[in-house]
């Protein structure tokens, strides 16, 4: 297990250095976006309009945080399940998105897009929302405020903990690791 520290922007060069299985600590600016925000981003692309933030070399974190308590930048903020964004991901990769943070499986269309465009998929620990919130130093809503928890936020993070699950070559930790520990009933 290799631990790597990375800072945003996540350039293609940095993407190529990340391998499935790497533990990473991410610092810098990342953007949040989940179901409803993704639908609006894609709609914006389809209409040929300007996106609310620079997607090139950016990381999107699939999260809908709890409200911040007074004096805190954000509430609990663990990853949401990524497959719901699968149908809305490739157009963002084509606009230069290089990183996604979520949890759970991605479909082949997304993996093919990641290989073609050069992007990486990180998993954060699902449900470890209080732990992850500690690495988020600033948060600001920058688009779609009416969506409440689903609004797009700009986050400043320090040593945000994640694992590279699918790298730019399509190596997929979910597949390789499960096989190692699967036991047939005959083994008992």
């Amino acid at each position: 297990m290799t631990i790597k520290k990375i800072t945003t922007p996540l350039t293609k060069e940095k993407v190529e250095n990340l391998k499935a299985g790497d533990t990473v600590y991410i610092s810098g600016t990342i953007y949040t976006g989940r179901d409803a925000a993704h639908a609006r981003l894609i709609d914006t692309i389809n209409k040929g309009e300007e996106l609310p933030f620079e997607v090139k070399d950016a990381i999107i974190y699939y999260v809908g945080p709890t409200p911040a308590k007074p004096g805190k930048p954000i509430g609990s903020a663990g990853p949401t399940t990524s497959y719901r964004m699968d149908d809305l991901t490739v157009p963002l990769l084509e606009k230069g998105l290089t990183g996604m943070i979520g949890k759970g499986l991605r479909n082949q269309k997304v993996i093919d897009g990641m290989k073609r465009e050069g992007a990486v998929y990180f998993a954060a620990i699902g449900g470890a929302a209080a732990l992850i919130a500690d690495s988020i130093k600033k948060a600001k809503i920058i688009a779609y405020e009416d969506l409440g928890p689903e609004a797009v936020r700009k986050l400043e993070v320090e040593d945000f903990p994640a694992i590279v699950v699918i790298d730019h070559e399509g190596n997929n930790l979910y597949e390789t690791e499960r096989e190692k520990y699967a036991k047939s009933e005959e083994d008992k």
Partner: protein
Amino acid sequence: MRRIDVKEIENTVRNLCIKANLYLGEDVIKAFEQAEKKEASPVGKEIIKNLIKNAEIAKNEEMPICQDTGMAVFFIEVGQEVQLVGGNISEAINEGVRRGYKDGYLRKSVVKDPLIRENTKDNTPAIIYYDMVPGENIKITFAPKGFGSENMSKTKMLKPSDGVNGVIDFVTKTVMDAGPNPCPPIVVGVGIGGTIDKAAVLAKKSLTRPIGSHNEKEHLREIEEMLLRKINNLGIGPQGLGGNTTALAVHVESFPTHIAGLPVAVNINCHAARHEEIIL
């Protein structure tokens, strides 16, 4: 006849909403500690350690364990010797949810219409199941349900000839298909029998049982143990990154059914198996 003011129910619900979302139950923490010792994968072990740490941070900093503070699900047992006064019980529960989710800085995750999808901004309406029982108490069980795991749940109408093996195959396949999505280690609730809706409610209600408890019926206890072993042999592991802790527990409940059918429902809960109950 004992009189209970619904205002007392509202206040109780408000407090339950906050408590369940901020403090992970001792049963779940104990299950994590046991799993951490047995987990073969180093990455899996580390993840379970982090889940224990997460629960500590949530408790100390009074913040939710998970950002998905769920749809509010209640099981209410009303003693038939109770007279409810001061208003409507369902409205009181919803008002308690409104206050709890606001005061506890919990996420409001409910949309008014499943297709139009406008947020109700107060996490109502709650889903409430009532049961009339003997006695003069009211028991309120609250289980906030996150949808990472709810989305991976399934029901199936098996044939009677599919029998116990059919049930086991369906449950195992449902967990396998869910893979890393529902945030393993999971708790698997299984409802067998009744009608399609009855089986689904049984599966959901079984998730409110303390982790590690078993069904009193011997044959169902055996199915629970067999399913837990089979599920943990799938290799999915904590967060789907490999290991032998895919589930912390399997809870099975059953109900009589029709000669022609064998309904089965699988309701999956993530590792944040939150549930709180109180007797008024």
